[in-house]
């Protein structure tokens, strides 16, 4: 690992310099695709960026004490964690940099979700608290499947290191794991049919209800970065190993784009489920597949 490569990965590609414009781009793609599938025009290309700039220019209400400080801190923490998660993705072949593993990536991916839960409770709004409670319940439900999928991939490939995983030829179990991760992504990204924490018609923006101005801009950015990180995780796991750096980067972007489109189709085609139905879906329907995947992975590991 050398420091220059590590910084380049964190700050340039696939880090901040790449991730931030692509966060806005993916947010736009999702909104535009859903709008076109619903027979609407959808937002113009620059809309997510313009929203961000507009929010940065707004004032925020003065909040004193530890509560106010925490409310300002959560979005920044979420943005940092999501940007770090994107920076960890092993997009370029043998590029060096942070030799992070899947566990660190998962931890960083989970931080924005925890920040959202904390932010809702810090805001002392009834809608925020309901949204946070929903996010917490949802997080527990999908994370079991998500973690089991990741562990089954790692166990089947005998490594937790992202660099090694990206270089190994994918196995059948890896694809099963990717499918399980794909099932969890709508809940992770608060998309229909699992858009419970930010159900506008019921609880306004949920945990974001009390946020405005630059803090809300940071939440939007964090959400966009989560998109890049989550779709990028699927892209890096699904992509075959390519030694050409530019081709690997292009494939990463193309696969992430396809995942964004798939999630948009799902979001446009479904309505929001109730919280108990969602939890039942993850615990009853998908958990069994995740358990099967991990038991097969462990069985294969002990046999080999």
């Amino acid at each position, binding site marked *: 690992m050398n420091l220059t490569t590590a910084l380049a990965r964190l700050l340039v590609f696939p880090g901040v310099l790449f991730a931030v414009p692509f966060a806005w781009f993916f947010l736009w793609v999702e909104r535009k695709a859903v709008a*076109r599938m619903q*027979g*609407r025009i959808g937002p113009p290309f620059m809309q997510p960026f313009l929203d961000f700039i507009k929010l940065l220019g707004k004032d925020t209400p003065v909040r004193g004490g530890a509560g106010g400080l925490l409310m300002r801190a959560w979005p920044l923490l979420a943005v940092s964690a999501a940007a770090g998660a994107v920076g960890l993705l092993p997009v370029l072949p043998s590029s060096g940099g942070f030799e992070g593993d899947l566990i660190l990536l998962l931890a960083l991916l989970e931080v924005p979700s925890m920040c959202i839960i904390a932010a809702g409770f810090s805001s002392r709004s009834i809608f925020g608290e309901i949204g946070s409670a929903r996010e917490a319940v949802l997080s527990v439900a999908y994370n079991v499947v998500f973690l089991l999928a990741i562990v089954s991939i790692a166990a089947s490939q005998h490594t937790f290191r992202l660099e090694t995983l990206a270089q190994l030829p994918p196995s059948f179990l890896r694809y099963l794991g990717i499918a399980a991760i794909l099932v969890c992504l709508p809940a992770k990204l608060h998309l229909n049919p699992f858009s419970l924490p930010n159900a506008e018609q019921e609880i306004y923006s949920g945990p974001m209800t009390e946020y405005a101005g630059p803090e809300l801009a940071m939440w939007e950015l964090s959400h966009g970065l989560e998109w890049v990180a989550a779709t990028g995780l699927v892209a890096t796991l699904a992509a075959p190993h390519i030694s050409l750096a530019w081709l690997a980067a292009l494939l990463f972007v193309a696969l992430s784009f396809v995942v964004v489109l798939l999630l948009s*189709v799902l979001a*446009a*085609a*479904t309505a929001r489920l109730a919280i108990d139905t969602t939890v039942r879906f993850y615990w009853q329907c998908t958990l069994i597949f995740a358990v099967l995947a991990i038991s097969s992975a462990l069985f294969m590991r002990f046999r080999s």
Partner: protein
Amino acid sequence: MNILTMLWKNLLGGSRTILFPARPKVSARYRGLVRFDPALCTGCAICRFRCTARAIEFKAGKGEFTWSYDPGHCTFCGRCVEGCKSHAISQDPACPPVYLNIGELKNSYTVARKPPAPKPAQAAPPAASGQTADPATEVRNERS
């Protein structure tokens, strides 16, 4: 799977949003803006009487009357059209146009009263009684 077919059709068919000055198509028997034909109006003011939204105003003057209509107040219920015996009022079957200033669609007509049509009894020569028309009735007709 039906929803996927619908989404695909929407995607191919483009958006249904109508951009600004264009107006949406209306259905058959659409009840739009109230149109007034001063040539047919007898100035009976039944339309104003029937207009619960007070979109129609009627001012009687000497030898003329003023009929005004404010679409901003109109609920397009069509009761004025139903009540108009002379068919001077109708409803436009097109979507109301875009307007930028308040009261732009308001219109007002000042119509000269028509002389009352001669009664058949007056037109014919007096019969056996030989009496002339009642002068009081003539005054009422003029006033009405």
